[in-house]
């Protein structure tokens, strides 16, 4: 039976059109995986000699054990965001003559061989081998390696329980961040020293190998907890069923002021608020707004004015770029409807344009407090806003006509590359870099004001020729209409 399951996994992986289509992305992910493996390998090999050299007085093994708390906490956090228990795939198996226990053990067992559990081995094994060469007893080294691997598995199964619990609340990742930072703070300010506690426990296990049974028991307990938790949910109305949100109806009557684009504007606002992935573009606004704080107070960047242009474009345009680069893929789920309804393409695109413009203005207004760091910052932000409205928004809309990747709105937001193609990567750079160049030339040869004026004038030209540009862009969309419909129709 298990061999069947494994074959399914293999086929699922290689037959998914996702794999076949975005080879570039997979190569990138592959590189990342290799990079992490190498990093861990280097860590595993070098940590012993480094510690020995830096602290010749203390025992490197004891020191490493003292740091385990941070390692485990980081591991748990990383898994929380990147590793998911793949329960959705088992729906077709439920009606087949298979014992539920087989399915459950399979799902849980499979998670034990995930990449996240192999990665630490690249550090654990070299370190253990070095221990053997460095006069530690072979048992000590082996027990240490075993303990580390058991702990990795404990984190693996602990993570699924944490995920299940936090999925029950609306707060998603907030609790884990709060708990993790709480633990970290308690430890950091020596209120409860978890790192010492954990270090001492591991030391004790090495001293007395029989104690290794304690982590093993914890592991078995967690496995059992996962098992019973999953068993409860192994019904199509349990976790296999997508959760239904309670609908909140809103009127958004104020959008009427925008005239004939109002229905689309309402639609876009609902799109942003009611779907996970677009909703994250709103939260990114906060990050974008605070981005300036990294650069402006820092004396290192004091003289790098062109760098501030980048920040300005970023702060006033973060929503524009995040939202705009996936036009019209946001609407891919119902693109056929839009194309057969009584809709003028231009209205549809104008609504997107208005949304981006409004966001740039709002971001500029919110960023006014940066004037604290000098009037130049304010001037830069204003110029960046005008440039974003006049040039970048049109570039984004134009780029959208080459968009052939569908987005499933119900999918999660973080680390979701769906809908990302070469176009998105290509379009990102000119949006941020070209304004720097445009500013830099007059800034270098004339002065700061000339650079700002150039940006504002260029943006102004874009705004003046808005209608002309929109006609051109609309034509591009009309030309690629059928290609888009058929691309959005395909499931990734």
């Amino acid at each position: 039976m298990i061999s069947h399951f494994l074959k399914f996994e293999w086929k699922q992986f290689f037959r998914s059109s996702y794999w076949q289509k975005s080879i570039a992305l997979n190569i990138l992910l592959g590189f990342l995986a290799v990079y992490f493996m190498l990093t861990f390998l280097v860590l595993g090999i070098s940590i012993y000699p480094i510690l020995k050299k830096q602290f010749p007085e203390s025992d490197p093994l004891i020191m490493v054990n003292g740091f385990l708390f941070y390692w485990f906490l980081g591991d748990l956090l990383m898994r929380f965001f990147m590793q998911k228990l793949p329960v959705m795939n088992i729906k077709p198996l439920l009606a087949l003559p298979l014992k539920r226990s087989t399915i459950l053990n399979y799902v849980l067992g499979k998670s034990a061989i995930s990449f996240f559990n192999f990665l630490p081995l690249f550090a654990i094994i070299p370190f253990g081998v070095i221990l053997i060469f460095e006069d530690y007893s072979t048992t000590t080294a082996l027990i240490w390696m075993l303990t580390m691997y058991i702990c990795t598995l404990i984190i693996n199964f602990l993570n699924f329980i944490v995920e299940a619990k936090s999925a029950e609340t609306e707060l998603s990742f907030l609790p884990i961040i709060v708990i993790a930072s709480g633990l970290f703070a308690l430890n950091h300010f020596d209120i409860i020293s978890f790192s010492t506690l954990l270090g001492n426990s591991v030391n004790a296990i090495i001293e007395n190998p029989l104690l290794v049974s304690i982590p093993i028991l914890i592991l078995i307990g967690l496995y059992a907890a996962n098992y019973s938790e999953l068993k409860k949910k192994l019904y199509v109305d349990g976790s296999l069923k997508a959760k239904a949100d309670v609908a909140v109806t809103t009127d958004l009557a104020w959008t009427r002021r925008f005239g004939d684009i109002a229905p689309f504007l309402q639609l876009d606002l609902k799109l942003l608020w009611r779907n996970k992935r677009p909703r994250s573009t709103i939260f990114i606004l906060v990050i974008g707004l605070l981005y300036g704080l990294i650069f402006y107070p820092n004396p290192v960047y004091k003289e790098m004015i062109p760098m501030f242009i980048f920040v300005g474009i970023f702060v006033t345009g973060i929503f524009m770029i995040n939202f705009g680069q996936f036009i019209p893929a946001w609407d891919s789920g119902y693109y056929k409807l839009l194309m057969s309804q009584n809709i003028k393409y231009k209205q549809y695109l104008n609504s997107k344009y208005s949304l981006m413009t409004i966001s740039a203005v709002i971001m500029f207004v919110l960023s006014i407090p940066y004037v604290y760091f000098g009037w130049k910052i304010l001037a830069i932000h204003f110029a960046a806003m005008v440039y974003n409205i006049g040039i970048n928004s049109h570039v984004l809309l134009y780029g959208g006509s080459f968009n052939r990747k569908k987005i499933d709105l119900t999918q999660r937001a973080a680390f979701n590359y769906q809908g990302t193609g070469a176009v998105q990567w290509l379009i990102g750079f000119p949006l941020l870099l070209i304004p720097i160049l445009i500013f830099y030339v007059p800034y270098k040869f004339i002065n700061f004001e000339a650079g700002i004026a150039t940006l504002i004038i260029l943006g102004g030209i874009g705004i003046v020729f808005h209608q002309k540009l929109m006609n051109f862009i609309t034509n591009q969309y009309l030309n690629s209409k059928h290609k888009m419909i058929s691309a959005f129709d395909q499931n990734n």
Partner: protein
Amino acid sequence: MIQSIELSKKYGEVTVLNIPSLEIPKGQAFGLVGNNGAGKTTYFNLLLDLIKPTTGYVLNNEIQVNKSEDWKPFTAAFIDESFLIGYLTPEEYFYFIGELRGMNKADIDTFLSQFTEIFNDEILGGKKYLRDLSKGNQKKAGIVAALIGNPEVIILDEPFANLDPTTQIRLKKLLRDLTKNSNATILISSHDLGHVTEVCERIVVLDKGNIVKDIKTSEETLKELEAYFSV
């Protein structure tokens, strides 16, 4: 009302639809039947300019659909779930479609009141988004949305599939009344021979993209169709 001229669609070497000539007069209730892969949905997609014809063209009220968009104001369709906007409530969806067709909220509310029976309290006023409704209820919402604004051409792909028996009967009555009381041209496709013969005055059978039968519905039509398909 709808003319197809030398219309064909090929994917690679495979011809999925080939209609040298087909004319559907104004006000007709037109039924399309055929097994899977016969080309029914392809034909509807061509009528709506959602795919490009390999040869030929479609005229909707003398407007060539892939040249001008002026057929859109009087044409409505429900092909599949991709015609629904999942994150809207059914009301919001109806208002949105209504707005595109020049009807305000009050108009839509009046319009919707005639569907109270079909909706069966499961669609309106519920705290659910369209994506969370059952397949059957999604279909109901989609079909009703296609009737908003008195369109002259209504295209429904498989309207009876996924509906409960009561709704099937109500929908049949609704479509018959529509052809009787208005001058709307209705195009439906179905796998259920009984339903199409009850609703449509004319039935065209497609097989591998070709028209093999073109029948004016009569008492014997159902028998004839059953005989044709029971090979």
